[in-house]
């Protein structure tokens, strides 16, 4: 089981702040998780594959080739605007 979080504008656009998802196999990359989410919700494609979207795994910013494991906390969010 994997928790996937969404923040800020992306959370509003997707209409939810989190989903849980079962990893189909080990050795699954973040990029493949994005594809899986889009398979399940085709209308998310434009929002999740937007090149400006940032991703983190266990609260560390990572790229699409990062390998995720069962129990990880994954997050998708727009460019940050704090400070």
């Amino acid at each position, binding site marked *: 089981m994997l928790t996937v979080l969404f923040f800020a504008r992306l959370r509003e656009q997707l209409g939810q702040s989190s989903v849980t998802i079962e990893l189909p196999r080990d050795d699954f990359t973040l990029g493949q998780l994005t594809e899986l989410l889009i398979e399940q919700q085709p209308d998310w494609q434009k929002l999740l594959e937007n090149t400006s979207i940032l991703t983190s795994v266990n609260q560390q*910013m990572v790229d699409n080739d990062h390998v995720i494991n069962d129990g990880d906390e994954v997050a998708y969010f727009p460019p*940050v*605007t*704090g*400070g």
Partner: protein
Amino acid sequence: MIRVSEPDFNVADEIALLEADNSQDGAVVTFTGRVRQQNDGHDVTGLFLEHYPAMTEKSLLGIVEQAKEKWRINRVSVIHRVGQLYVGDNIVFVGVTSKHRGDAFAAAEYIMDYLKVQAPFWKKETRSGQDAWVEAKTSDQQKAQQW
């Protein structure tokens, strides 16, 4: 010291903490970021600061550690508020002490520059009664990449 919370901070108290029992550091640099009335041509009355609670302190700690590797600095405070803020309110405080001013200035600006592009905070501004997410600036990306 890293703190992410709703209440306002008091710059005098934060400076007192940076300076207490600290006679080794001759330089104290602080940055305070506040809600402006005008942002990118919009009239702003307030803003809501959303964040990713599990990640924010971790992210700020990582930025401070990077700064400590790059410069000879001693004490560092980073405070970031979240929740509903209004014009003139404090948003963020960065304080750095060092033996020498050059290190303190560079580290404080570096921490702000990376906070701006890496720390998971998002501003939703209230502009003449309407809410709008603030757009990230490419100039902030460029500024962080200059270090």
